[in-house]
């Protein structure tokens, strides 16, 4: 895993004045578990995303305490979007600098939502966010029919292939990709590192 002699310790500075371990930490972990039936992917300020993830986790736990059941994803993201919106018109605060993709599985099936710093909230069948998301969106638009009817394995491969565009010249690999899945009888789970090997092998990467 080590990429050079200065990245073994969190407090070892490289001659260029970088803390490599800290930077590795910053470039990874864009997927968060919220509850067994809800997960998020984030693009933007990681610190804001973590604060929002904490809020969502608390709401999920409160709902489980009060009703002994999973919260309805649509209602949670609606409150989440309101939280974003409130930040856009308070003079002493700044808007959240993060967009979220929220995946959830409810009694009426799977849902995928996108929140924006503006407070806008959308629901999609497939979506990508982030500065280089356009090629992923294009890929998913092209393959939407196949994505809608895909089994889990095919779906993961579609996700990895959609990631190849934004990854530019780099191939997606066990080192630079992670995929999260959730659904009926499938609690939220992050696939990364060796978990991705069978899928990457099947893609011939």
């Amino acid at each position: 895993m080590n990429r050079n002699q200065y990245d073994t310790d969190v407090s070892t500075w490289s001659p260029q004045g970088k803390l490599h371990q800290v930077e590795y930490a910053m470039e990874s972990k864009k997927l968060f578990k919220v509850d067994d039936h809800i997960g998020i992917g984030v693009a933007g300020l990681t610190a804001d995303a973590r604060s929002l993830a904490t809020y969502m986790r608390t709401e999920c736990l409160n709902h489980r305490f009060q009703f002994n059941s999973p919260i309805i994803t649509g209602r949670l993201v609606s409150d989440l979007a309101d939280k974003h919106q409130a930040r856009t018109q308070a003079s002493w605060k700044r808007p959240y600098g993060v967009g979220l993709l929220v995946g959830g599985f409810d009694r009426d099936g799977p849902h995928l939502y996108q929140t924006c710093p503006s407070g806008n909230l959308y629901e999609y069948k497939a979506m990508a966010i982030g500065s280089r998301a356009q090629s992923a969106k294009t890929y998913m638009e092209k393959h939407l029919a196949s994505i809608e009817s895909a089994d889990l394995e095919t779906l993961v491969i579609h996700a990895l292939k959609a990631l190849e565009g934004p990854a530019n010249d780099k191939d997606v690999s066990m080192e630079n990709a992670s995929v999260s899945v959730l659904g009926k009888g499938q609690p939220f789970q992050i696939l990364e590192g060796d978990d991705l090997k069978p899928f990457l092998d099947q893609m011939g990467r």
Partner: protein
Amino acid sequence: MATVSQTLACAASGADVSAGRSAADPHKHTTSPIVTGTSVVALKYKDGVMMAADTLGSYGSLSRFTDLRRIVTTGGYTLVGADGDYSDFQYVQDILKELEVEDACVADGITHSPKEIWCCMARILYHRRSKMNPLWNNLVIAGFHEGEAFLGTTDKIGTSYECDFVATGMGLHMAMPILRRHWKPNMSESEARELLESCMRTLFYRDCRTINKITFASATKKGPSVDEPVEVSTEWSYQSFVDPKAGSDTGGSW
């Protein structure tokens, strides 16, 4: 003792003793119910759940109100029945209405399931007992949701359980043995109704806080509904009813 300490507290705070109450007085919580309803009985059957309760509101031993409805519907799937203090049940109904309004405001077509309402009620009752100010009710929560019947109950300290048939109050003593003997899975609607009537009849005979004006309710795939009160048939020609030995050798019973 209470009078002395209250008077002292009033004197110390300079409050008007003649008003009888001041902010310095100890806070008085409900330590006994006022207007009460008696047993609620419910059971699962083939099509869902059936529930029954009479319409009497007792003021101590006085039959004060004779047309109180103690079974209500809430959300799209649920029945809630209550015994104990009627004003506390009215407060519970306010909370149920709040839940309905929340669901209506979100307007996503989803309302709380019977199981969720049962859990929520148990939480509220436990919370109130933890403040040493309990809501003086046993609640029976029944419903039919996503093809499945639900029946659960919670007491005034939040102890809760699910069961195929439940009875509260005097019903625990006198309806439960009947239900244990005669209840079976997948009873037809008429069998369930007959069993429930048998429970209510026995309770009318032996519980001194009942009247023969009983609401039956059910929750099925068609949703929850509460019928107008009816009388159950009675038979008073039994020898022990005709010729009670009250006071002779049984200490007032027959």
